[in-house]
C-alpha cells in the first residue's frame, strides 16, 4: 500500500536500467499482465452472461414475465430491500468497525489488541450460513421484545409502526446481522490503515499539547480517511451481495415499506434469486438473472463511487505511497 521502500539491503549499489532485459523481469511482467487481463475478461464474461440470459426478460412484454408482473414492478421492491438492509448494515457496522479498529490500534494494551485482532479476523472466516442460522434461532427471537417495546413507545414513527413480527425475522434484524458480517472487513482494513499513520504526525500532535483524542482527530483520521471509506465500501459490497444469511433470516413477504419490524418485508435481490431459482423455469429464470444484472450494476456503481471518493482524498491524506 503506502510503504515507500527505497533501495535496501544488498541491492543498494546503483544499477542503471539494465533490469529490463532479464528473464525474471519478462516472466514477471508476463504473469502480472496475464493476471490483470484475466480479471477484466472474467468481469466481461460475467457481464456478457448476465446480459445474454436477462435479454428475454428485458424484451418480453411487461405482463408476460413469469411472475405475472412487469420486470420493474418485480425488481423494484427487491432493489429497495437490498439497499435498505445494506444501508442499515453500513450505518450500524461501519462506525462500530472503525471504533473497534481505533481501540485496537491506539487504545488497547498491546497484548489485548493482538488477541482482539485475531478474534475479529476469525469473525471474517465464519460462513454466512452460520450467521443466518444464528440470526434465525438466537438473534431474531431475542429482538422480539425490543421490537415490541419500540412498537408501543415509538409506534408513531413509520419505521416502528408494527405489528411486530412474532419471530423477529424482519429487515432490521437482517440489517443488524449483515452489520455483524461486515464488521471484520471494516475493522481489519481500518486497523491496518490506522497503524500506518506516520509516527511523526502523532508525536507532533502530542507535542503540541493535543490530548489522545485530539491527536486521533487531527493526525490519524485525516490520514486514514480514504482507507476507511474503502473499508466501508468493501463492507457494503458484502452486504449487498449477501445471499444465504438473508434467505434464511428474512421474512420476505411484502413490498416497499418503511416499517422495519413487521413480518411483511421486502426481499433482497441475492436472497430472492437463491430462493426462487431452484423451482424456476423458462422466462422466470430470465427474470431472476435480470435482477442479478441489476445487482451487478448497483455493486459496480457503488465501487466506482468509492473509488472516486478515495481518489479525491488521496492527495489530501498523505497516503500516496
Amino acid at each position, binding site marked *: 500500500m503506502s510503504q515507500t521502500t527505497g533501495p535496501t539491503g544488498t541491492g543498494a549499489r546503483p544499477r542503471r536500467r539494465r533490469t529490463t532485459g532479464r528473464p525474471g523481469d519478462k516472466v514477471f511482467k508476463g504473469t502480472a499482465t496475464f493476471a490483470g487481463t484475466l480479471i477484466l475478461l472474467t468481469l466481461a464474461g460475467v457481464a456478457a452472461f448476465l446480459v445474454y440470459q436477462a435479454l428475454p426478460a428485458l424484451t418480453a412484454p411487461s405482463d408476460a414475465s413469469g*411472475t*405475472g408482473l412487469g420486470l420493474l414492478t418485480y425488481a423494484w421492491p427487491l432493489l429497495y430491500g437490498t439497499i435498505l438492509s445494506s444501508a442499515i448494515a453500513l450505518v450500524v457496522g461501519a462506525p462500530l468497525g472503525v471504533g473497534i479498529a481505533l481501540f485496537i490500534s491506539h487504545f488497547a494494551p498491546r497484548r489485548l489488541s493482538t488477541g482482539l485482532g485475531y478474534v475479529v479476523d476469525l469473525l471474517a472466516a465464519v460462513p454466512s450460513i452460520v450467521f443466518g442460522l444464528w440470526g*434465525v*434461532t438466537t438473534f*431474531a*427471537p431475542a429482538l422480539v421484545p425490543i421490537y415490541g417495546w419500540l412498537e408501543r413507545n415509538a409506534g408513531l414513527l413509520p419505521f416502528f409502526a408494527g*405489528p411486530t*413480527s*412474532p*419471530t*423477529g*425475522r424482519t429487515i432490521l434484524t437482517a440489517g443488524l446481522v449483515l452489520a455483524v458480517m461486515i464488521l471484520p472487513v471494516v475493522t481489519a482494513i481500518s486497523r491496518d490503515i490506522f497503524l500506518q499513520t506516520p509516527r511523526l504526525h502523532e508525536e507532533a500532535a502530542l507535542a503540541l499539547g493535543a490530548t489522545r483524542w485530539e491527536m486521533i482527530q487531527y493526525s490519524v483520521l485525516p490520514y486514514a480517511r480514504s482507507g476507511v471509506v474503502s473499508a466501508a465500501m468493501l463492507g457494503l459490497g458484502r452486504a449487498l451481495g449477501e445471499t444465504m444469511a438473508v*434467505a*434464511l433470516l*428474512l*421474512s*420476505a*413477504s*411484502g*413490498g416497499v415499506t418503511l416499517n422495519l419490524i*413487521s*413480518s*411483511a418485508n421486502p*426481499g433482497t435481490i441475492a436472497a430472492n434469486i437463491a*430462493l*426462487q431459482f*431452484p*423451482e*424456476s*423455469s423458462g422466462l422466470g429464470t430470465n427474470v431472476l438473472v435480470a435482477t442479478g444484472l441489476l445487482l451487478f450494476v448497483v455493486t459496480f456503481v457503488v465501487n466506482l463511487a468509492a473509488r472516486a471518493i478515495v481518489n479525491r482524498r488521496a492527495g489530501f491524506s498523505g497516503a500516496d505511497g
Partner: protein
Amino acid sequence: MNRSPSSRVALLAATLTVGLTVPGCVAVNERTGGASPVAGPGPAVSGTLNSAGASTQPAPFQAWSARFSAAHPEVTVNYDPVGSGGGRKQFLEGGVPLAGSDAALDDEELERARERCDGGSAMDLPVYVSPIALAYNLPGTPDLTLSPVTVARIFDQQVTDWSDPAIAADNGGAALPAGAITVVNRSDDSGTTENLIAYLVANAPDDFPHEVTDTWPVAGGEAAKGTSGVVDAIKAGEGSIGYADESQVGDLGRAEVVAAGQAVGPTAEAAAKVVDVSEPVPGRPEGDLAIEVNRTPEEAGVYPIVLVSYQIACTTYATQQEADLVKAFIGYTSSQQGQKDAADIAGSAPLSPERSDAIAAALGSITASS
C-alpha cells in the same frame, strides 16, 4: 524448517476437493445390511441410475436407493434435488433417464418428450403421496377444526384473530382465546404451496381469489425458506399457522379440515385415499398415470390437501441396460414394499395395491430401441 503449514494447506485442499464434488447431490449408495430383499422379476440390473428433480423426494429416495442398492449390489442410484422444473428440464434434455416432479409434464413437454424418448412417450407415474398439514402453534388448544372457507379466509388474511366467530363456528361454537393470527408461508417457490392453493381455490374460490402457482400469492405473512424454515417459524411464533409436509411438522398441532361434511386429519390413510378418488388427466399418452387430484372429495375420510409427486420415465430408452434399470427401480418404488419403506422413512402415504398394480402394468411397456 517447520513443514506443518504446507501440509495443512494440502489437507485443506483435499478437504475442499472432497467437499466440492458432493454438494446438492444426495449420493445415497450406502448398503443397508440385512435389508429385506427387493422383490422384482426381470433380469439382474447393474449400472448407475442418475435422477434429478423435486425437493420433496430426497427423503423417500434415501430409503428407496438404500434398499434398492442392497438388493442389487451392482447398482448405484443418485438423486439430485434440483427442483421439479430443473428435474423435468434435465429429463427432457436427456441428462437423466428419470425425473422426480411435483407436477406432471404439460402438453408441450410431452411433445418434447417424444424426441427424448426415441419415438416413445413419457410417463408420469405418481409414486409419492404426502399429506400437507396445516400446522399451528396455539398452546392450550389441542384440537382445531377448520372448514375450507375458514382456511381460505385465514390464509388470505381476512380472518386475523383466533377469536373470530368463523373459527368458533367450526369448533362447536366455543370461541378461542383472542390473539393475532400469523400466517406462515414458504418464501421459496414450492410444490407444497401450489397444492395448498389448488385446494383453496377448488373449495373456496370467492374467499381465496388467487391463481394456482408455486409462489405464495398473499403479501404480509411470515415467509420462511423451505419446509424446515416454515416449521421453525411456526414453532417460534405463538399464534402462528402454516402449511408443511405432515412428516416434518413434529409436535405442532395439526388442524383437521372439513371434507364431505366431516373433519379429517392429515393422516397417511386419509391422504392415500385421494389418489383412489381422483380422475386420470384426460388425453395422456399410453401408460401415463397423471391424475387430477380431487380436492373436493365426496367420500368420507379423505384428506384433500396432499402433494402428489411423480417419477417421470420414458417408454423407450436407447439401451437395454437403461430400460431395465429404470423399470426395476420404479417397479420397486411403486411396489407395496417400496411404498412401505418410504412411509417408514419419509412419512408418506402408501399407495393402494391397485395403484401399485397399475404402475407395474405401465412399466411393462418400457423397452429399448436398440
